[in-house]
Each structure stands twice: as C-alpha cells, then as structure tokens.
C-alpha cells in the first residue's frame, strides 16, 4: 500500500481567485506535514480561497483531518466577529464516501463546504 502523496496546484481567477490543490495518494501522519506546509506557503503568499480536490485521495488518517482543521484555522486567522469577510475560505471537492462521512462525523462540514461534481462549479462556489 503506497503511502505517498502528491499535490499539484492550479489557480483559477474568475470572479475571485481560487487556489486548487489536487491531492492524490494517502494523507497520513507523514504526508500530512507536506500538505500543511504547502498550504502555509500558499496562504502566506496571499491565497484566501483554497479548494482541496480530494478525488485522488485513497486514504485519510486522523492526521489528515487535523491538517484540514489547521488549514481552516490558518485561512480564518484574519477573521474578527465584525469583519468576517477578512477571513479566507476552504472547500473540499470530491472526497471519497468514507472521507465525506468522517468530515460529517467530526462536524467539519458546518465550516468547510464539501462539494461533489465538477471543478468549475466548485470554483464558482467561492464567489
């Protein structure tokens, strides 16, 4: 069983700029650190809208969910009660049924939109 993870990054700037991480492989205690540092770099360079395309993710360990949580917190670091719009947005696209169910079990879906379907529609959802 491979425990590698790959991330390819694309950018779509229609109504709002959206950075997309196309993640494949396994997000576990080792690989989640890579995902976290790539997200940190993107956010530090100005990414405010991040879409995690998880269609290629075969397995997500608890570390993956903790990384999801950390990325969410980093994107919302600039948020204050009055100025909600200063925060960023995180959405997830095409997670596997197991990952989708776990996101719901953990209650993450209240804060992180879980989308299915095509990439364009997911990107448009940020506008």
């Amino acid at each position, binding site marked *: 069983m491979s425990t590698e993870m790959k991330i390819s990054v694309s950018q779509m700037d229609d109504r709002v700029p959206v950075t997309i991480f196309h993640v494949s492989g396994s997000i576990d205690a080792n690989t989640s650190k890579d995902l976290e540092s790539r997200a940190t770099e993107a956010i530090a360079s100005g990414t405010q809208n991040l879409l995690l395309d998880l269609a290629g993710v075969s397995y997500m360990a608890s570390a993956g*969910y903790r990384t999801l949580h*950390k990325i969410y917190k980093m994107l919302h670091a600039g948020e204050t009660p009055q100025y909600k719009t200063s925060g960023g947005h995180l959405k997830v696209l095409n997670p596997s049924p197991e990952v989708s*169910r776990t996101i719901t079990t953990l209650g993450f879906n209240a*804060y992180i939109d879980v989308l299915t379907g095509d990439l364009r529609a997911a990107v448009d959802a940020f506008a």
Partner: protein
Amino acid sequence: MALGLEAAAIQDMRLAVDEAVTNIILHGYGNDGGQLSIEVSEDRGALIVRVRDNAPSFDPTGAPPPNLAVPLKEWPIGGAGIFLMRKAVDEIAHRVMPSGGNELTLVKKYAAHDNH
C-alpha cells in the same frame, strides 16, 4: 442493515485508534520507540478497542471537560486530537496499569438494540 452500521462504526473506531496510537508513538515514546498492544473485542453491540503501552503515564482524557458543541474554529490546535477522538467514538477511558504503562479503552456502539 447491520453491515452498514458496522462498517461506519469500524471506520470511526479506526480513526480514533489511529489518533491514539500516533500520539503514543510521537509523544509517549518519542524517539525511543516502544511496545504497543491493541486488543479488539465486541460486547453487546459495541466495538471495544484497548490500546496498551509502556510509555510514561499520560491521560489524554485529562483535558478540560469536552464540549462537543464547540465549533471547529475554536478547537485548540494542540487539543484537536482528543476532540477528534471524542467525536469519533462514544467512550474513552484511561487508566494506568498495575505494571505501569497506559491503557486506553475506546468504545463505539453500533447496534441499534441498546438505543433508548
């Protein structure tokens, strides 16, 4: 029907065990490594996993009383693991074993017959 409930319970339990074991390896044993045992059993519609280690005594449930209603935004970064475990399984108990070392018991209910 029962199979669906069981599969979901097993997935959730796997997540909690994954988190517990990762913490023992990273924090309990650090760079030294050590032994771990995982015992799986079933009792009246509940899946029970006991994780035992020889690491220094540490109670992950010793954090302030859990508030499962706390929204994701407010999860503390460090304590996210225990929050995650509490959402994934129904009960978590810790004890220090007579021989030393920790025993963490995780319980996940899956059968409908005990619901009131």
